[in-house]
């Protein structure tokens, strides 16, 4: 095992060795490692190439702020690009590859771009690729995209599962470091429902990376003790591996829990769960992120954040170098040096730009106060550093600490703007925080341990007290405050080599100065011009440094320069997690008709109608195309009898003493005096007089009506009627309930339909006298099954609609087929239904398109002038009923070999197809087997006076122009004798 850099101690489990591969090289680590710690333990320093210049890069941090060590994790379809090695939990068999290089990682041919860096600074695209314009999409952009960028997608369907969920709590605590744990203890002990979420797989935050003491024990032991206590509380839910990534309205937070990312295989479980957390109060205990100092060639593998070096040593038992130097402007860097030295790591030097006495003595280390690192050497691995005092030192690892920036991201998600705090040289939460949100610990600028514990404890108690809980009497955990002194020192000037500010986007101090020089001085402009702070790390280690460099360049202070703010997500969330559990078939619910199983057996082709699946046609032997099926269904229905499942039509039961009066308001035509046992066709208008739905309503008893609506408008009609009932006519005793799903309903149509119904219905005279056109009744069928029978027709034939409770629907369709066998009954689908209704001139949604009035469909007589109903007054506006308005007409082609297209414009012969000459349009077309030609319905200006005229149907989209004859819309059986027969 080649763990040459492994030292004693740490939190890894040496009893659980793990094997993994990086760039096909087999390496070893332990349970508890991250990929980054294991790579460092194995001496792997070069782990990737930079975004733009393909510079060699190594691991820079120990957390989600990592800008360099992005890898492609796993392989094949499971491959995920841009995964931070610093947060990827090591598991046995893990495979990772470096990204953004051509050829081996060590010999990236694209590193030639580094030599071209003087020509490709910030904004070079905008200036360089101006001409010719056509080259941008075809040449420039593809070339740039191929040479720059991060990881690659597998281009295969993601085989992983994802899920979503909903959680609720009194107090959400984001971050399980010292302040978060102290807060959870306080709130949990008081009985509040607490969710404690942390992006790490271990609770403790920085306590795992330090050697602090709390309450007389090591910080790590205190974390263990606290975890045990919290786990014993039913009211506390601990969510490790969970990133709270967004703060939304009304105390709702988005969180991503990585359920199985740490396992070799997810099994059949979701890889990640996207939680929506409903909170009454929320505490942000997100800690702080260390930042770098800009100096020449500060991006070499081996140059890391000093606090991360401390974390790798304390938590993962990894020495990040054999000769470690520290460059720090604050006391935290000294703490790193001291702890590493105590662990036996060779500290070669501590360089501190502050002109103060050295804060401590580190055995064996040379100390350079008032001095900075001004350059480094070592292309793929740091070898040497040069100081501003001219001294050069050998070092294979340089820890840099430019101070700590509070993690204020979640405080900004509702436009809160952080404010500058000179004492800590960082931005702290400011402005209006999201409702119910408080901040504690280092996130709030409480940078030392005792302060963090106290603020967590105090803030939690305040939060739960505001919810009515009584805080426990327990005091905040006791600890000492470590030294935290800092000098604002941002970058080392006086050297020509590039000094990196944003490692992920290859943004240097020179780029920022160029941005300033070219007028992009506002922080938002700076960000967009240079790409500072973009991409997966969202500038966690670079934003403040960039602002500081800009402030220096403009001669302003940092508060005067301002800051960008943050939006969700805090760290990257896979698109798959946002998509959730369902792709494909279950992406939306599917509604099935009661005869679906039977229709499937009958070879039905289904079509989606909203969420419904309806039989479109039924294929039979000999049918060469769908047209053959549809023609056959129409012909056989018109000749004998057909059956169609019409259960999808909206059905609403209307009951109450005022039901008739209510319907009289809803429909434009009269309903108050519809006799019991009769059905009436009705027209519904919007308030503005536009017709929006039609259908039949049957009076089953004095106080009971059954309404049918179009399938598409079932919900709209119900909603509008419920509004009318509750808001317009609250004094009426009327009640609505949807019965769409309650009843299986079948249209039985054709000359032989009466014979079929007679066989099915118990004890009812279905003769024309006994049950005439537009009759209805509660009946029983098949020996006692309750049913509803309606004598209504959409096809124009003598027809019935028979409804039974849906649980009998499958049985009924089989009985209908059996009863109609002697007449060779045919099932027909919505295509045949559509053909027959066009032949008959019945309107549907194709005609009632939101612009059409009763006048337009020749039903102006149905707008009753003697009563008040919704929309009736506005439907009578002068221009809406003018003679030259369009009218519904039937359309037949003159040459039967031509076809019609819906959407074609109607224009007069010998006129140009222009807007001025547009006379109307075709709304529905079909091939009519009855007329043996294409026919259609459409709207034509003053169409009622033009029956018999020959005009043109011009379709500029499809390039057709055919002569058509205008007819009555009632092309089939215009007198209606068949349906009444």
């Amino acid at each position, binding site marked *: 095992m080649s763990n040459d850099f492994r030292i004693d101690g740490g939190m890894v489990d040496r009893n659980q060795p793990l094997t993994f591969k990086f760039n096909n090289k087999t390496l070893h680590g332990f349970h508890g490692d991250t990929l980054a710690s294991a790579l460092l333990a194995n001496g792997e320093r070069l782990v990737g190439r930079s975004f733009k210049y393909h510079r060699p890069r190594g691991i820079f941090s120990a957390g989600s702020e990592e800008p360099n060590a992005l890898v492609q994790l796993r392989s094949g379809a499971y491959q995920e690009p841009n995964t931070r090695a610093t947060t990827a939990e090591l598991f046995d068999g893990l495979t990772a590859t470096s990204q953004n290089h051509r050829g081996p990682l060590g010999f990236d041919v694209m590193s030639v771009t580094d030599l071209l860096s003087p020509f490709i600074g910030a904004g070079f695209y905008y200036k360089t690729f101006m001409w010719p314009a056509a080259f941008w999409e075809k040449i420039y952009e593809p070339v740039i995209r191929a040479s720059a960028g991060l990881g690659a997608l597998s281009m295969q369907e993601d085989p992983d599962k994802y899920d979503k969920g909903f959680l609720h709590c009194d107090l959400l605590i984001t971050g399980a470091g010292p302040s978060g744990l102290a807060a959870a203890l306080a709130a949990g002990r008081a009985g509040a*429902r607490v969710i404690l979420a942390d992006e790490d797989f271990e609770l403790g935050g920085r306590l795992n990376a330090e050697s602090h003491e709390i309450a007389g024990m090591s910080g790590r032991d205190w974390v263990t003790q606290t975890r045990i206590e919290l786990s014993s509380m039913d009211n506390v839910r601990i969510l490790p591996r969970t990133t709270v990534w967004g703060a939304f309205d009304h105390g709702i937070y988005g969180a991503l829990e990585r359920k199985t990312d740490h396992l070799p295989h997810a099994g059949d479980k979701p890889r990640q769960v996207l939680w929506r957390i409903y909170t009454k109060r929320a505490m942000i205990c997100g800690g702080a992120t260390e930042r770098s100092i800009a100096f020449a060639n500060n991006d070499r593998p081996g140059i890391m954040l000093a606090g991360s070096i401390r974390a790798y040593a304390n938590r993962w038992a990894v020495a990040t170098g054999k000769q470690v130097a520290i460059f720090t402007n604050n006391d935290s860097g000294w703490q790193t040096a001291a702890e590493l030295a105590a662990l036996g790591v060779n500290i070669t030097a501590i360089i501190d730009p502050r002109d103060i006495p050295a804060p401590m003595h580190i055995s064996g280390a040379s100390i350079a106060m008032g001095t900075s690192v001004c350059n480094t050497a070592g292309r793929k691995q740091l070898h040497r550093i040069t100081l501003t005092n001219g001294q050069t030192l050998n070092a294979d690892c340089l820890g840099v600490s430019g101070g700590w920036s509070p993690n204020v991201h979640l405080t900004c998600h509702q436009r809160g703007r952080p404010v500058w705090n000179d004492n800590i040289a960082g931005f702290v939460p400011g402005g209006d925080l999201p409702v119910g949100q408080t901040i504690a610990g280092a996130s709030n600028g409480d940078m030392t341990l005792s302060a963090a514990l106290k603020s967590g404890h105090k803030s939690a108690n305040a939060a739960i007290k505001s919810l009515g809980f009584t805080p426990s009497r327990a005091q905040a955990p006791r600890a000492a405050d470590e030294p935290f002194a800092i000098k604002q020192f941002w970058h080392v000037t006086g050297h020509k080599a590039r000094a990196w500010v944003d490692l992920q986007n290859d943004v240097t101090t020179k780029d920022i100065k160029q941005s300033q020089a070219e007028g992009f001085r506002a922080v938002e402009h700076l960000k967009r011009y240079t790409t500072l702070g973009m991409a997966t790390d969202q500038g966690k280690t670079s934003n403040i440094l960039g602002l500081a460099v800009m402030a220096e360049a403009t001669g302003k202070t940092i508060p005067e320069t301002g800051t960008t703010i943050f939006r969700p997500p805090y760290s990257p969330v896979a698109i798959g997690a946002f998509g959730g*559990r369902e792709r494909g078939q279950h992406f939306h619910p599917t*509604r099935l008709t009661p005869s679906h199983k039977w229709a499937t057996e009958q070879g039905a082709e289904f079509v989606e109608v909203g969420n419904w699946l309806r039989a479109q046609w039924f294929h039979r032997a000999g049918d060469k195309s769908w047209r053959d099926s549809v023609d056959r269904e129409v012909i056989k229905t018109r000749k004998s009898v057909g059956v169609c499942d019409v259960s999808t039509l909206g059905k609403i039961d209307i009951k*109450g003493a005022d039901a008739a009066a209510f319907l009289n308001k809803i429909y434009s035509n009269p309903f108050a005096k519809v006799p019991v046992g009769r059905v009436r066709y009705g027209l519904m208008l919007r308030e503005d007089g536009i017709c929006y739905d039609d259908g039949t309503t049957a009076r089953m008893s004095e106080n009971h009506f059954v309404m049918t609506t179009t399938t598409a408008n079932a919900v709209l009609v119900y909603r509008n009627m419920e509004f009318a009932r509750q808001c317009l006519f609250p004094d009426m005793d009327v009640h609505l309930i949807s019965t*769409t799903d309650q009843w299986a309903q079948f249209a039985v149509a054709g000359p032989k339909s009466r014979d079929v119904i007679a*066989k099915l219905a118990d004890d009812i005279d279905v003769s024309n006298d006994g049950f005439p056109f537009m009759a209805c009744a509660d009946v029983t069928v098949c020996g006692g*099954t309750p049913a509803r029978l309606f004598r209504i027709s959409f096809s124009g034939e003598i027809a019935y609609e028979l409804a039974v409770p*849906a649980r009998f629907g499958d049985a009924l369709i089989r009985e209908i087929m059996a009863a109609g066998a002697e007449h060779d009954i045919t099932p027909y689908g919505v295509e045949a239904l559509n053909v027959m209704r066009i032949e008959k001139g019945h309107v549907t949604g194709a005609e009632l398109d939101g612009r059409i009035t009763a006048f337009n469909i020749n039903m102006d007589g149905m707008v009753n002038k003697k009563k008040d109903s919704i929309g009736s007054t506005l439907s009578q506006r002068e221009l809406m009923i003018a003679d030259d308005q369009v009218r519904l007409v039937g359309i037949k082609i003159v040459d039967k070999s031509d076809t019609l297209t819906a959407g074609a414009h109607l224009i007069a012969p010998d006129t140009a197809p222009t807007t001025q000459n547009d006379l109307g349009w075709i709304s529905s077309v079909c091939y009519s087997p009855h007329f043996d030609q294409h026919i259609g319905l459409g709207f034509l200006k003053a169409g009622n006076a033009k029956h018999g005229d020959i005009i043109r149907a011009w379709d500029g989209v499809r390039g057709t122009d055919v002569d058509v004859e205008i007819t009555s819309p009632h092309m089939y059986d215009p007198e209606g004798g068949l349906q009444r027969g």
Partner: protein
Amino acid sequence: MANLTQTSSLNGYDQPIGDMRLREITDLDLTSLAIPHKGATKLKTAIKNGLSLSMPTPMKSTADAKSRLLMTQPDQIFAMTPRSKHAESTIRKAIGDTAYITDQTDAWVVLELSGPSSRTALERICQLDLHPDVFKKNQMARTTMEHMGSMIIRTDNDTFILMSASSSAASFLHAVEISVQHVS
């Protein structure tokens, strides 16, 4: 003519999954009882006399071993009573004409999810807070699950009734089943 055979939306689905059981309930009549204007008192008395139950209040249900009443909206109660041949007639025998009665038996698919992990499973699909201190036994709510309108009733500590439209029963079952599988 043969009598018609009944089929349920999910063919009587009944599966143990992990420490839970998910099943379709098919032995209930569901009826909507719309309260006539100014008729609440009469209905309350009729319910007491005819069903031996008290009138539910909003978001609550009242129940005995056989029947359950839910208040689904201000002037509407849902009755869940033992399956009979004709739901409307059966309930009318109990409460007379004190409400406008509409059969809803076939409009809904009724699932029962029970077992120690049932609340954990429902976290994946139900946006309501089902903590027993918040959503107590016999409490009910109308909500949506995976874009489907639904009702949820807590009938015991770890037992929930879930209802949704019968036409999308298969989609609803799939949604609940996946939730259960993901946590079991």
